[in-house]
């Protein structure tokens, strides 16, 4: 069990949401990150003889800082473990129809993007708001068709087949999606995860057939231990992070080939974010993962390949190290260093 999963189970229920209470002087539990006590005495600017007593305010739960990036190195595997190519985008453009409002360039949300997505890899789409990364993501499973007036050009190949020629339900069975706001259905946890399994099949599968698949999906999503006692609890009563993991479990239950994630952690607190990032790390062994994020630090932590988009164009595409350490385009360099966005 990783540290993050331990952390997510650490706080007892009674302390969630309570304000920190000041206790009377009490030795606090030593924490690995705290500086050693004598350090405060020797570095006091007033000299060693006049030192104010160390008064510690102890919280009911020791604060858990987010680990600095250097300690995350251990999570990323050695590059080159990529599997077969799952999705290939060739010259893909998307527009939302209507009169062009952007002048000569037209109202294209996405312009001429070509990418390749492999199993075993996490591709992060980064860029400032409105650059078309979410539109591109939704085009991959043809969810843009729900918007009237959306048009797509270019080709998207899933395992060599053109996505356009597949039935949309068949496509979405193979390319799953997790949204920004967790959206579990108003049913029990079990019914949520079993939803795709029940509804995608021709013949309605029975309960004994579904149980092992549901449990497996919940395990892979890292939620099983927390909900195992009662799978028939209403899904809407879970916390935000748990709901998002439930949505991930629901998405991966039918064993898709590609998992698309649209800013999955933006509505969550840092602990849940950490849990889900750990999860992505595990999931990419079986799937290709495409994650859209506006959080550069998250992209750094999680991604193997990075595609930087700006105003609908794909500006730079490469491995995470290259895009973050040695970006070629000046715009990428500016964005990555935080000059805009």
């Amino acid at each position, binding site marked *: 069990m990783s540290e993050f999963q331990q952390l997510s189970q650490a706080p007892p229920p009674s302390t969630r949401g309570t304000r920190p209470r000041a206790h009377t002087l009490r030795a606090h539990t030593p924490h690995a990150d705290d500086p050693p006590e004598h350090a405060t005495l020797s570095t006091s600017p007033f000299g060693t003889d006049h030192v104010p007593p160390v008064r510690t305010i102890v919280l009911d739960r020791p604060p858990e800082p987010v680990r600095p990036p250097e300690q995350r190195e251990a999570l990323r595997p050695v590059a080159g473990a990529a599997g077969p190519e799952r999705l290939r985008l060739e*010259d893909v*453009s*998307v*527009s939302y129809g209507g009169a062009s409002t952007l002048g*000569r*360039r*037209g109202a*294209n949300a996405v*312009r*001429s993007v*070509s990418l390749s997505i492999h199993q075993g890899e996490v591709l992060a789409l980064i860029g400032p708001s409105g650059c078309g990364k979410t539109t591109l993501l939704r085009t991959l499973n*043809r969810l843009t*068709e729900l918007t009237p*007036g*959306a*048009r*797509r*050009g*270019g080709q998207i190949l899933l395992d060599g087949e053109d*996505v*356009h*020629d*597949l*039935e*949309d*339900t*068949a*496509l979405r069975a193979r390319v799953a999606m997790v949204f920004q706001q967790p959206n579990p259905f108003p049913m029990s946890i079990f019914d949520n995860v079993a939803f795709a399994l029940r509804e995608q099949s*021709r013949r309605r599968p029975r309960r004994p057939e579904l149980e092992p698949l549901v449990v497996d999906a919940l395990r892979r999503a890292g939620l099983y231990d927390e909900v195992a006692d009662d799978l028939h609890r209403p899904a809407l009563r879970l916390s935000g992070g748990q709901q998002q993991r439930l949505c991930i479990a629901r998405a991966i239950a039918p064993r898709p080939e590609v998992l698309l994630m649209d800013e999955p952690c933006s509505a969550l607190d840092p602990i849940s974010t950490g849990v889900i990032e750990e999860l992505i790390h595990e999931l990419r062994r079986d799937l290709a993962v495409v994650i859209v994020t506006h959080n550069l630090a998250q992209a750094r932590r999680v991604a193997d390949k990075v595609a930087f988009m700006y105003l609908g*164009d*794909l*500006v*730079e*595409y*490469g*491995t995470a190290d*290259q*895009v973050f350490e*040695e*970006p*070629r*385009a000046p715009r990428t360099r500016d964005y990555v260093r935080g000059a805009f966005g």
Partner: protein
Amino acid sequence: MSTLVSHPISAADRSGIGPRRGRGSSMRTWRWSDRLLLLAAWAAGLTLCAIAAAIVLYMGYRGIQYLSPELIFSRPQASLTQAGSGGFLDPLLGTMLLTVIGVAIAAPLAICSALWIVEYGRPNWLARVVESGIEIVAGTPDIVIAFFGLAIFQLHLLSFASETAEGGGVTGRSFLAAGAMMSLIALPPIFVTVRDGLQTVPSHMREAAFALGKTRIATIRRVLLPGVRSNIATGVTLGVSRIIADTAIVIVLLGSTLRISPQPGGAPVLGVLKGLGSTLTSYIYENSPAGEGGAPQKAYAAAFVLMLFVLALNLVVERISRAQARSSGFVTAVEGIV
């Protein structure tokens, strides 16, 4: 090696990009129950549209066939022949009078109740009792309300409201009695719309008024009530449309005399209020084969006029809610999905 992608205007840009939809899911892969549901939904929808169109067209046809201006403006007369029996001016006036009485009683009651529930509402159980009470009134059949009116207005306590026959029996039937019961009919719609409107007023408006030192009641008068003006208008319009559509109360509490018959020997206005009359609805009922007269043409004409009123009220409600949504950005329950 990261690839640097330049962005020329591609051919797709210039010509407008390609197909809108890919292949949808073929119905061959659907289960039987899905196909059945699709078919049933289409069938039901088309049936409903057909019925609606048939009713609207038929009533329109008959109404235009039989309606003439003289019908609206001439008073009904007792007569053996159709030609001599006149029009329905009195029932029309009766409808308007009842509406005015009903709304005049119901609107202040409903607005005060809604204000109390939303702004004060203490103790909690009392607020819930009041809301349940109004819900029960809303769900009571109008015939029961009519008989309740009869029971109340036949008490000697309220004999001022109607006529007292010789022998001491209070008739309990008059415009006042019917109007009072109509107010019970109109109370729930007004209450519900005003309450919902008050609940959607953002709390920062109230807080700003309190911060300026205004008491609650002053806030209500100066800030909240003007803010829910359109809700009040919507509620009153809904109440009016319920009043003009009601027949049972009219038949029981107003009698169905042809003309407005004021109580003899009294002040003019009070005499009318204490007297009997009829409305468009009871006129339609009496002229249909179910009532006394076999004058279906007059019934159709009156029904057409009634439908025009209902249509006008519906349009008013729509316009108010659209104007409100535009100005304030709130979506009221009335607007629905359009």
